[in-house]
């Protein structure tokens, strides 16, 4: 189910939070309402962690992660790094990387299997991404923008991209990511998808300005109607038991 909320009167919830299938990072500050919204949805299933990165609140745009790992920019302080390592479940590998493009959330978009990266990303970073997150990495652009992490958001079930993406590009990306993609907007016509919303396999959080039409599009493409958290978490637990 998709939820609409605001962070301190801003509708860009994807900037202040990072949602994956195994954990959720939320920025400090703001009212308790923001935190409560996430807790209400997620606390039974996955840990919701309040943190800052490099002293800033824009946690969603600075880090990138999936159920396998979390990558942090070089600006992250040691305390934050320690805090995160403590709070996250053990199977999630936390790593700080040295990368010139430090806003990793803007440069990389990933789900549990595939990642799209900024075309100018370092080779080493690409290798670290492939290793820590356990994904296949593709350098791509979305509708001519190189900040793929900002202009598209995808989960294991589906993805939403910049509205000006052409049909051919959409097909190409869909083939790469192996998920259905749709071009759409969020927050009343805003094109910066990933900044306006954050999503995982069973739930999504969007800015309060998102219209009903946009919300229905999101729910359809990410298949949020049928999704139940328990099924997915059970799958994860099963794998844990196995190992």
């Amino acid at each position, binding site marked *: 189910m998709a939820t609409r909320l605001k962070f301190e009167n801003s509708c860009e919830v994807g900037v202040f939070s990072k949602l994956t299938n195994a954990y959720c990072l939320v920025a400090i500050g703001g009212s308790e309402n923001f935190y409560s919204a996430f807790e209400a949805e997620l606390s039974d299933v996955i840990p919701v962690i309040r943190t800052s990165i490099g002293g800033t609140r824009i946690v969603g745009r600075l880090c990138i992660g999936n159920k396998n790992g979390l990558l942090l920019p070089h600006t992250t302080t040691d305390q934050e790094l320690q805090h995160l390592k403590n709070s996250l479940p053990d199977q999630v590998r936390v790593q700080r990387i040295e990368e010139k493009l430090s806003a990793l959330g803007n440069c990389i978009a990933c789900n549990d299997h595939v990642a799209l990266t900024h075309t100018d990303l370092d080779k080493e970073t690409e290798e670290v991404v492939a290793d820590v997150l356990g994904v296949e990495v593709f350098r791509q652009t979305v509708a001519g923008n190189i900040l793929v992490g900002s202009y598209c958001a995808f989960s294991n079930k589906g993805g939403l991209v910049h*509205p*000006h*993406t*052409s*049909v*051919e*590009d*959409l097909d190409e990306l869909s083939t790469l990511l192996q998920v259905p993609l749709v*071009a*759409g*907007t969020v927050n*009343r*016509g*805003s*094109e910066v998808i990933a900044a306006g919303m954050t999503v995982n396999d069973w739930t999504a959080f969007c800015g309060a300005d998102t*219209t*009903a*039409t*946009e919300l*229905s*599009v999101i729910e359809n493409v990410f298949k949020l109607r049928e999704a139940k958290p328990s099924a997915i978490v059970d799958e994860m637990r099963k794998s844990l038991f196995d190992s």
Partner: protein
Amino acid sequence: MMAQDAGMFTVHQTIGSVLCCKCGIRMQPNAANMCVKCLRSEVDITEGLLKRLVLVHCPECESYLQPPRTWVKLQLESKELLTFCLKKLQKNMNINKVKLVNAEFIWTEPHSKRVKVKVSVQKEVYNGAILEQSYLIEYVQQDHMCESCSRVAANPDQWVAAVQLRQHVSHRRTFFYLEQLILRHGAAARAVRIKQMDHGIDFYFSNRSHGNKFVEFIGKVAPVKSRSDKQLVSHDSKSNNYNYKYTFSVEISPICHEDLICLPPKAAAILGNIGPIVICTKVTNSIALLDPLTLKFGFLDAEQYWRTSFKSLLTSRQLVEYIVLDIEAVSSEITVGGMKYVLADAQVARVSDFGKNDTQFSIRTHLGHLLKPGDLALGYDLYGANSNDMELDRYKGYIPEVVLIKKSYEEKRQKRRGKPRSWKLKSLNMEVDDKIKVNEDKNDAEYENFLKDLEENPELRFNISLYQNKDYQPSEVASVTEDDGQPIPSVPDDELLAADLLAAEFDDLDLIEDGDGEDDMAE
């Protein structure tokens, strides 16, 4: 494009479709990602624009006020009015950053005092999308008399410049001719009042420049000398505004067409010593003089004339009828000053003498091309005249006894007496001063003479507009001409304008029939 030029393979990009974020219909993505209708419902770009304005209008002269003080004459639903209305919106639009795309009038009842304009504007909204919207502006027309109309209404006789036109001769022929010229060129269109005075006409204007323009016009069509004066009417010492009344005194030279003149030696010297007895053949802004004995020609322009101002010896009032007994051409046809003349020796006798006594005169005349034995001609009788002219007394040389001027059509005219002409003239709206004694009969006779002159002289007609006389019956006159087979001088129909034509457009056609053509008068 550049990639394609470089030979690279590029995939053809098809624009996908997204759902409008508000209403959910499929549309092509745009900068706002909303369909046009939703965008329109969201944003009103006409907010903050003026929708109701005031136009100040003067009902007397149909003009609109352009602040601070100019009044422009504009027609309803005209392009100029549209430009005028839109100018008022310009500043307001620039502040709101909208661009004007289209404007048109919506019809309103003329009495409603409303002018409606539908305007289309464009504005940029939502980071890049340009939205176009049209809306209605209503202009309320407020009535307010403009300054010139209120001045006229307050004191209709108020004038600022007066032009006093005078000619000191005993007839009004010049003024009849000038009246027609003025009508044709519309020189007196700005005159507030026109008044007929003794020996002249007064014109009153509300502006000094109008008066000046009129004086210059007269200066171009007649030999004049003028002077101007001004009189202080009021004076505002605070703002140093002085109001004056200006008067122009214009005097026309007394030399008229067909006058006989004895030139003073100074004037004769300027003109190359032509004989002292000359005829004035044409008066425009210069005087054309012809020596009938030698066919020599001279021009005096206004300045030269007034330096050696001389009066005419005999005027056309004093023309006497002569009958030509015998005529013999002495020279071939000579073209002088645009007119053809033939020098001839002729034997003439006064009609009053003819048959009664044997008084005959052998004279030299310039009308050899016109006259045949038995013709009647009009001329000046220097033999019998008792002239009181100093120049004539001083001159010791040969003075002709008779100077013929033109051929006479009197007899033929008598048959036509009382029948209306096929053409008529317009006249100026002149006031006649009651205090001055006006001789009605004299006026009528002079006017009749003027009309006859017009018929005889095509060049006199050149600058005048003649209008068709609706009351004219052609059949009557036709029968007259058929009887004796001689055409009398008349104006051919091509020269006439329809009576309802206000703008005179004179066709410079070749005249089919000329009054001076062939004629054999059988006595």
